């Protein structure tokens, strides 16, 4: 009967849909594993020659003579991300408190699109902005303060550009975190005669502390993996930087800058894939820990 056939094809169609859905889900969840395995396999040939510690803690980067010490790049990465966090962290924290505790709703309505757009602007556009504004600013304003003549392509420039890039991420999470603190808690403290600011200082910050740390560390890991914008303003000189006004050469920039030539030098590609692998592992670990902390915070309140 026609109806029976209809019903059977209907059930069959549903089964096919369900199978595709299950496949898509499993594929999506395996993606980081696939990424990790792929990159690890590619970097295996280098790891057979040297131990991972030798590579990570040696400062000799001379691919042509087979030396792949990544310390200069790791130190550079640490410099730019730290500067980015030092700039973005306080700004975000203050602004998040302002927006959730003091500001009128209209300000929040303005800030939502601002945050969205900041988060949506591509990395390369931040790079152009860095080249146009931040690099000259570092060279012409910051340099002279320290009596140095510099080009402006420096760790400081990279850090400032990165700071602006991670502001929307950190701010978004902080606003969420402060929203999870129940209003009643604030009201109770207010009715004890405290001022709004005392509530913020004594209650809010303490309650939200794990969330604040997580937001910062998520911002940090975001900054750690940022490539193009930093690459455009940081100078890209292979050395271990000792000051913010020197040029640096962070890990992602290393990968991005050398893809063209890496095929001709033995093990060069292994080294770059290892760099990508290290980046992946660090970022995933940071993300897991900080997201877990936020998750716990939301559950406990």
């Amino acid at each position: 009967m026609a109806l029976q056939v209809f019903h059977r094809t209907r059930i069959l169609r549903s089964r096919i849909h369900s199978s595709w859905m299950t496949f898509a889900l499993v594929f999506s969840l395996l993606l980081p594993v696939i990424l990790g395995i792929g990159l690890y396999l590619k970097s295996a040939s280098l790891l057979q020659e040297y131990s991972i510690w030798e590579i990570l803690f040696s400062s000799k980067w001379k691919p042509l003579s087979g030396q792949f010490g990544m310390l200069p790049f790791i130190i550079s990465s640490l410099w730019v991300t730290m500067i980015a966090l030092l700039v973005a962290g306080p700004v975000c924290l203050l602004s998040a408190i302002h927006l959730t505790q003091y500001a009128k709703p209209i300000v929040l309505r303005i800030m939502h699109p601002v945050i969205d757009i900041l988060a949506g602007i591509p990395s390369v556009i931040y790079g152009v902005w860095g080249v146009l504004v931040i690099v000259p600013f570092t060279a012409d304003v910051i340099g002279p303060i320290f009596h140095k003549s510099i080009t402006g392509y420096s760790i400081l420039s990279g850090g400032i550009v990165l700071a602006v890039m991670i502001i929307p991420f950190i701010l978004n999470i902080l606003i969420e975190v402060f929203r999870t603190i129940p209003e009643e808690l604030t009201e109770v403290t207010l009715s004890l005669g405290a001022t709004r600011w005392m509530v913020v200082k004594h209650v809010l910050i303490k309650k939200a502390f794990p969330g604040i740390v997580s937001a910062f560390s998520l911002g940090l890991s975001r900054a750690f993996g940022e490539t193009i914008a930093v690459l455009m303003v940081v100078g890209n000189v292979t050395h271990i930087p000792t000051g913010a006004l020197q040029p640096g050469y962070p890990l992602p920039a290393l990968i991005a800058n050398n893809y063209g030539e890496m095929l001709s030098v033995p093990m060069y590609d292994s080294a770059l894939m290892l760099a990508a692998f290290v980046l992946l592992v660090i970022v995933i670990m940071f993300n897991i820990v900080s997201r877990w902390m936020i998750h716990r915070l939301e559950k406990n309140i």
Partner: protein
Amino acid sequence: MSEHVKISVEDLNLYIGKQHILKDINTRIPENQITVILGPSGCGKTTLLKSMNRLTDLYSNVKVDGKILIDNEDILHTDTDITTIRKRMGLLSQRPYPLPMNIFNNVAYGLRISGRKNKAVLRKRVQHYLELVNLWEEVKDRLHDPASSLSIGQQQRLCLARGLSVDPDIILADEPTSALDPISSEVIERKFVDLKSQYTVVVVTHSLQQAKRIADYAIFMYLGEIIEQGPAADFFSNPTEELTRSYIKGLFN
């Protein structure tokens, strides 16, 4: 009881996690009558209703023991496709959930998934079911407006028409009038009375007045147990249990 039994629940126990929600439920719901399940909120009446078409499958940590027989088929332990079982029961929930489509398609949806595709047939059937719930006159000129543009009372009637469209023989209604204005409530109630000649109707309510108006058979639940059940006439005039008596007197709600 001489009537044919449509739904028979035997030793039903239901747990959510460690909570014992339904305790040793036994009842026989008569065909072509209106059965009303009464009780204060939280007594498990909605859960009992939803276990009848196995919507309890949707929630985590639910464990069900016992039997629910519909026309002597145990729907908890069966190979029959669950969609076929559910199609035999139209559900009307506390507040209307129209599908995100226009008015016409809300009713046609159920017909389409049952394999009726012919346009003229669809149109006729849709009109038929909309007339059945007294909605046709109100919406016949705006069949292509979104269903969400209707008033809540109209939406609930639309949902009833939608539920009837898949040709069920049971109607499960979960406090179907609690979100409605008195006039729409009355329309729904009257519809139930009209429909009972063709359908078996099970209504969960916490309105005693409503229960008195429409019930043929009444079940009173309290804290997950059936305290008392029986034909409505006896149940309301002459309850045997102390708890039922005080509930009917309106001593608690």
